[in-house]
């Protein structure tokens, strides 16, 4: 146990915390915007997987990682568009649409991957030359702090930047105010002449793009290949983090980092052979989400019309 509390192990946990939190943070801030418009997109897991694949595919084919990110955004955005068509236009049940798209995203990505890279019954499992961390000059030389905060991937900086950006967008802009109003009471917006469908499309497609980028982190930065189950439940965790964060950007940052920290600790514990049930640490974020739900009940910021389709003239 004493071996565990060494400087290098603890520093390693903090560095890993940000790496693990990155895809969660990107997907969850995107989902926050989608949910603010009143649409719950349960397909994050499948959308992240599709993003991880389409990003990998483009990066591998072109040899350009940045084009890969564009590919991931397009892949995730396409699934977001499908979700928007089903929920904002056709107005089917959002839970059903989300679960169906989730399966489509997962299955579609695996199928496409195999049809591209399978030869003679065996998959080649190619790899890309993945993103290196972007070391910020001077700041990264600060002991400990530099390594934790200023020697991370661009996508990590991007994810953290999206927290204040999302807050400002939702709370300080006209579009954000209208989006939140739609999520709470679409009829009020309709009667004020604020178009609902176009804004829901924008929000849900944006959520899909962000989930795609979150997935691409896994195949282009955190790892260097695509494989089945690459997302491994992170889509569901991102959904839980939005709830845990009570639909507030700052808490979503806290939730993502908390999850990243627990996961990193758990990995370190396993690696150092400490005899603790790591499953307990893995389950902790979900327990905390339930606790947060119970205690936030009266102060819940949940969009009041989340999952309820709007039809004009039905009261």
């Amino acid at each position, binding site marked *: 146990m004493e071996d565990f509390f060494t400087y290098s192990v603890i520093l390693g946990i903090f560095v890993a915390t940000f790496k693990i939190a990155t895809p969660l943070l990107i997907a969850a801030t995107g989902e926050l915007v989608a949910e603010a418009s009143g649409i719950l997109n349960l397909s994050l897991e499948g959308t992240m997987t599709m993003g991880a694949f389409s990003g990998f595919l483009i990066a591998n084919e072109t040899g350009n990682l940045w084009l890969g990110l564009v590919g991931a955004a397009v892949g995730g955005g396409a699934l977001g568009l499908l979700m928007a068509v089903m929920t904002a236009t056709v107005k089917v049940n959002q839970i059903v649409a989300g679960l169906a798209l989730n399966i489509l995203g997962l299955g579609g990505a695996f199928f496409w991957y195999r049809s591209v890279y399978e030869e003679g019954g065996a998959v080649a499992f190619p790899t890309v030359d993945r993103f290196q961390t972007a070391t910020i000059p001077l700041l990264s030389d600060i002991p400990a702090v530099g390594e934790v905060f200023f020697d991370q991937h661009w996508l990590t900086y991007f994810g953290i930047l999206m927290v204040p950006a999302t807050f400002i967008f939702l709370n*300080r*802009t*006209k*579009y*954000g*105010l*209208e989006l*939140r*109003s739609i999520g*709470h*009471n679409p*009829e*009020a*917006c*309709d*009667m*004020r*002449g*604020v*178009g609902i469908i176009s804004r829901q499309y924008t929000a849900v497609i944006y959520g899909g793009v962000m989930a795609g980028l979150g997935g691409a982190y896994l195949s282009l930065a955190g790892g260097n290949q695509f494989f089945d189950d690459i997302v491994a439940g992170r889509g569901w965790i991102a959904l839980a983090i939005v709830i845990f964060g009570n639909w507030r950007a700052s808490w979503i940052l806290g939730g993502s980092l908390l999850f990243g920290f627990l996961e990193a600790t758990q990995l370190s514990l396993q690696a150092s052979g400490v005899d603790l049930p790591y499953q307990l640490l893995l389950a902790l974020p979900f327990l905390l989400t339930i606790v947060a739900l119970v205690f936030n009940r009266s102060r819940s*910021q949940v969009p*009041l019309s989340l999952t309820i389709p709007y039809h*004009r*003239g039905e*009261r």
Partner: protein
Amino acid sequence: MADAAESGAAAPGENILVAEEVTKVFPGVVANDAVNVEIRRAEIHCLLGENGAGKTTLADILYGVYQPDDGRVLLEGKPLELHSPRDAIEAGIGMVHQHFELVPPMSVIENVVIGTQARQWLDLTEARRRLEEFFADYDVEIDPEAEVGRLSVGEQQWVEIFKTLYFGVEILILDEPTAVLTPQGIEELFRILRRMRDEGLTIILITHKLKEVMDLSDRVTVLRRGKVVGTVDTADVDQRDLARMMVGRDVLMQADKAASEAGEPVLEVDEIHLESDTGRGSLEGLSITVGSGEIVGVAGVSGNGQNALFDAVVGVRHPASGSIRIAGQDTTESAPHRIATLGVASVPADRIAQGLMMDFSVKENLVLGNQRERQFSRAGILNRGQIDAFAAESIDSFEIKTPSASQITRTLSGGNLQKIIMARELSGQPQLIVAHQPTRGLDIAATEYVRRRLIQERDRGAGVLLMSEDLDEIFQLSDRIAVIYDGRIVAVTEPDATTLEQIGMHMAGASDTDQGSQ
């Protein structure tokens, strides 16, 4: 508003907004049938009619919510194409709906600016300045930063009205704006509406209350079953004329009721506390007694604990402290089913959500909740013959208009829905009837029927706890009137010993001592 009036071309008294041969058909209903209405500039024009007469549909067409199937709308003589509320707002027409269109978790000011901001970066200073000016001008005290969901319904209505005026509209449509107000609140609203009219605003007010038409309007258009019966100057008619136009026959304005002596108490509610989830409408030590053979009317503005009182008496929720006795038995912690078997009938406020299974047949709804009785089932198997016989008898005696007992309930009108509930609940000759808003939304004929039935039950010896926001109903039916405010009964009196104004004061929270000093 003043600016808007000056910029308009037409002088006061000329037609500003005209509906010409407007027809709107919904599946199975002709909501508006070749309707012609002429609204003059700077007048208060009432659209009067019973529920289902087509008033709201007409207003929604004028506001662009619906597009007419036939006919057209003219603004200042020019045809006006309205595809959505946005078009109406741009043409200077605003509407306050009966169901508020507010975003409860947001502040007053955020609600006001939705859809009005020109730039992407939110700028609330201008809105705050105009809001404060408006509230000061009309003596309304509301904090612009307050969360709308925490305001009283009266305050929320002001937010709705200002929200609409903020667009700078020339024509303001109000759909049943007084439903949620105390008599004093209504007086205040009317005073301000008159002032706005004098300043040049054109106001269209939808109502089914004759008294409001007489008090406020310059002219009134009466609708019946989707058609215009006529437009008259209010000064030329009285309430009786309007009622005849509205219903198509003479109407009894008073329910006949003989004097009655209250017998043994059938309901004794003693100091109950019951907290509601939302924090509004909790009970804070409420006590009330209902004797056999009397109707006790509970008057109050909605949200003062009526829902909690109803739930506590019928057993849906249990009070945290205090006691409830029905026919001498303690039912404080009893389940709804057990309370029903003591002879308690309940007529809930929301008949669709709480009273009926809308996709079940009429006969199924007629036995709903009584299905376990020996009459209707044996060993868990429903006795269809008995149910059919009971349904046929109920449909006959309660004059329920339905093609058959197997008809799906959803297709029936509001009055017939309420009759199904009444038939079911009154079938066991209950000793106590708890009725919450039993005539809300019903037409005049159905209202008369329900009220007559409640008086008959009282004459039979049942005790009736009647909760209503309709003060005329309270005065007509009650042997005693109790006023509920903030989860307590603040006054108990008899209809002959009080006035509408006094009850209104109590409803707004004034105690007897306050009144003495005024």
